[in-house]
């Protein structure tokens, strides 16, 4: 039996090395946790959609690069008028959709008008809220007129929700996406995988891969053997948990802990007593020990945050010391607020491990200052209904994964029930500002207001555990936007 096993092993090694020695591979299998509901990024919020099609199949006028910066995509360049109200985009020539039709200004107008329309089901309509009109000036020039200046427009147009689609194929994109990207869609075996392949007539630099398959592996325990057996070459975000050290020790793989745009927060119902009392919220902030929470909720990976902002963002300021961990001070504040003996409340926890495990630790930390939390596990559907829509909650733990989403605190009726005219004013000013230095300053002010108001318990930035075959290069380390961009990925020997 033993010799038999050795022989089999040797045969497998021979086969594997034999094929690899001929030439660099051009196929790739990417393991992802969630299967998207459909493949049209302009008609759904699911990150799983963008994680397949963004930058690979679909492109927008602009795109977001690996470190979060705005890069030109279908628009070669753009100009802003002096009053900040008119953007003129110069489009690339020689671009075709995967069905062979030509890309031109009319497609841009169609796509943006479709996304903004009354009956549109675009999940991020707010991205386009400032747009007054879109005009196809000539086939390679598009003029966008705004209602009010919006400095973030080029960034907004880089989202997956703003990709350019063709009128001929837009309605079928959910099942058969047709974009302008370097990969074209091949096949979707429901429940199993999506396959894309190189688009020969791509306008830009051709990709190194001929074929890529996104394989859906929802079970964390199944992803490790899939990687070890070589069935899957990379997990852009592996949920390995305890098995991670084993993979880190294996020279066949590269493990990179990057950052996501996910601010993990102890969301607090600011509209409900006693959480409407600033001192109570400050007491909670003092009671939280972020390092301990990160250790328990995310195996020690994750950067502490002091406000609702990504530490990877250039405009981030470190506010983690606004209310440092101090149990005595927390107790004093609670007493001053009129709760010397503490109080009890509920903590609703959605399914992800960061919430369920983090929740246990948060509950024990708050118990130290006399706040007794009843933990209520909920599934996502219940969470969306009870917490997010009906605001029927005291505390909850959730990660807000949309990039640059500090503006949600200015939204009326948002589930935090936070209302601060001063903050709203900063957001309004930010919306009308396009000067980068001024924008950075305003972002700082906004972060500081949220931190000082202790709107929510700001915990940590959700990490991204990227694992890939050591012979692969070009994978993204961070996820400044929900995407698995394969355009620069290649096998090297």
């Amino acid at each position, binding site marked *: 039996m033993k010799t038999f096993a050795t022989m089999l*092993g040797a045969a497998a090694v021979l086969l594997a090395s034999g094929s690899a020695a001929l030439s660099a591979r051009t196929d790739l299998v990417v393991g992802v946790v969630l299967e998207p509901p459909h493949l049209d990024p302009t008609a759904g919020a699911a990150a799983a959609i963008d994680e397949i099609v963004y930058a690979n199949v679909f492109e927008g006028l602009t795109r977001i690069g690996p470190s979060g910066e705005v890069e030109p995509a279908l628009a070669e360049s753009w100009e802003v008028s002096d009053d900040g109200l008119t953007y003129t985009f110069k489009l690339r020539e020689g671009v075709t959709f995967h069905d062979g039709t030509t890309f031109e200004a009319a497609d841009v107008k169609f796509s943006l008008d479709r996304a903004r329309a*009354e009956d549109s089901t675009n999940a991020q309509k707010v991205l386009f809220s400032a747009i007054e009109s879109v005009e196809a000036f000539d086939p390679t020039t598009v003029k966008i007129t705004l209602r009010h200046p919006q400095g973030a427009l080029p960034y907004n147009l880089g989202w997956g929700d703003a990709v350019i689609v063709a009128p001929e194929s837009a309605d079928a994109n959910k099942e058969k996406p047709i974009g302008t990207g370097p990969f074209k869609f091949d096949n979707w075996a429901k429940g199993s995988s999506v396959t894309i392949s190189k688009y020969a007539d791509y306008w830009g630099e051709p990709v190194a891969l001929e074929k890529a398959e996104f394989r859906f592996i929802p079970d964390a325990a*199944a992803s490790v053997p899939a990687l070890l057996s070589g069935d899957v070459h990379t997990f852009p975000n592996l949920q390995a948990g305890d098995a991670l050290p084993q993979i880190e020790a294996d020279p066949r793989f590269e493990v990179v802990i990057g950052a996501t745009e996910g601010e993990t927060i102890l969301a607090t119902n600011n509209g409900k007593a006693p959480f409407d009392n600033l001192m109570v919220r400050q007491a909670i902030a003092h009671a939280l020990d972020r390092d301990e929470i990160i250790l328990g909720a995310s195996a020690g990976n994750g950067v502490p945050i002091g406000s609702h902002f990504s530490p990877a963002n250039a405009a981030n300021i470190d506010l983690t010391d606004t209310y440092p961990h101090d149990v005595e001070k927390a107790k004093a504040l609670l007493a001053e607020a009129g709760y010397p003996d503490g109080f009890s409340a509920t903590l609703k926890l959605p399914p992800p491990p960061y919430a369920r495990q983090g929740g246990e630790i948060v509950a024990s930390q708050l118990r130290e200052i006399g706040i007794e939390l009843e933990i209520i596990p909920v599934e996502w559907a219940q969470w969306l*209904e009870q917490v997010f829509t009906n605001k029927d909650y005291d505390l909850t733990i959730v990660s807000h994964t949309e990039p640059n989403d500090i503006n949600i605190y200015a939204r009326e009726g948002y589930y935090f029930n936070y209302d601060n005219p001063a903050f709203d004013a900063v957001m309004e000013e930010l919306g009308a500002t396009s000067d980068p230095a001024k924008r950075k300053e305003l972002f700082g002010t906004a972060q500081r207001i949220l931190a000082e108001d202790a709107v929510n318990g700001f915990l940590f930035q959700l990490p991204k555990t990227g694992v890939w075959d050591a012979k692969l290069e070009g994978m993204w380390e961070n996820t400044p936007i929900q995407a698995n961009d394969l355009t620069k990925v290649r096998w090297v020997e």
Partner: protein
Amino acid sequence: MTAYLAKRLAVGLATLFVASLVVFSVLEILPGDPARIMLGMNASPEALDALRSQMGLDRPVVLRYLDWLTGMATGDFGRSYTYSSPVVELVAERVAVSLPLAVMALTLSTAIAIPVGIFAAARRGRLSDTLAMGAAQVGVAIPNFWFAMLLVYVFAVGFRLLPAGGFPGWGEGWGGLWQGFKALLLPAVSLALPQAAILARVTRSAMLEVLGEDYIRTARAKGLPRRAVLWRHALRNALIPVLTILGLQFAFLLAGTIIIENVFYLPGLGRLIFQAISQRDLIVVEGVVMLLVASIIVVNLLVDICYAVADPRLRTGR
């Protein structure tokens, strides 16, 4: 025989109708708005309303139930909220995995269990019986997902003989068929083992009961060889409890395999229904549950027919 079947069929149809009522009303009271789940946290109220009316969710409950019922009667199970493709297509894709898997597992478990059960019964009390039943005990006790992981580590990670999971589809020609078969082999083995263990024990005890009967002694006394007595006289009479268990196991294998489907990330029926429930894709849940109810009714009907074949007394209703 005809009257017997007609009665069974009528009971089956009534069960289907009651099931449709229960399924529809249970899902109706389940919390969670499908539109909200599809569009996510930052969706605007207008986008939500637009989607709800697109999906027909703004219409009265009774109307939706009647539509659904008449739709099903004509083979139209509606369109999935999340995948926006017809439920029939979705289910058909999943059945192409689940049905072959169930058949493979059942074939495997029967092929192992029945001979082992007969063998153990024939050698009751001897060492070989003790060993066989001991093995069966272990088979019942081992959790199938753990056994599945073990198989993956040995045959996929260690020897790299079989894929660690996934399903490439049935493909074209013999090559494609072989790929599909290879992908289902480990899952089928991990499903078959505990089933075989139970089946072997049931076969053994049913055989033992029969072997104690007078007619077996008569058969032996008139000079029939042991083997003929075992396979012709004893097995046939011991089949009724074995068939009952087989029927139950097949029904389980069709949709109760979600854990194994997860370990091997197979796109089967179990995972479809699990996904659909968590995404509140109610129309898919309803369709799949009705299909499962129907298939369980059909399996039971087949088992009833097998009873009648195995035991002539049931045919005449005496």
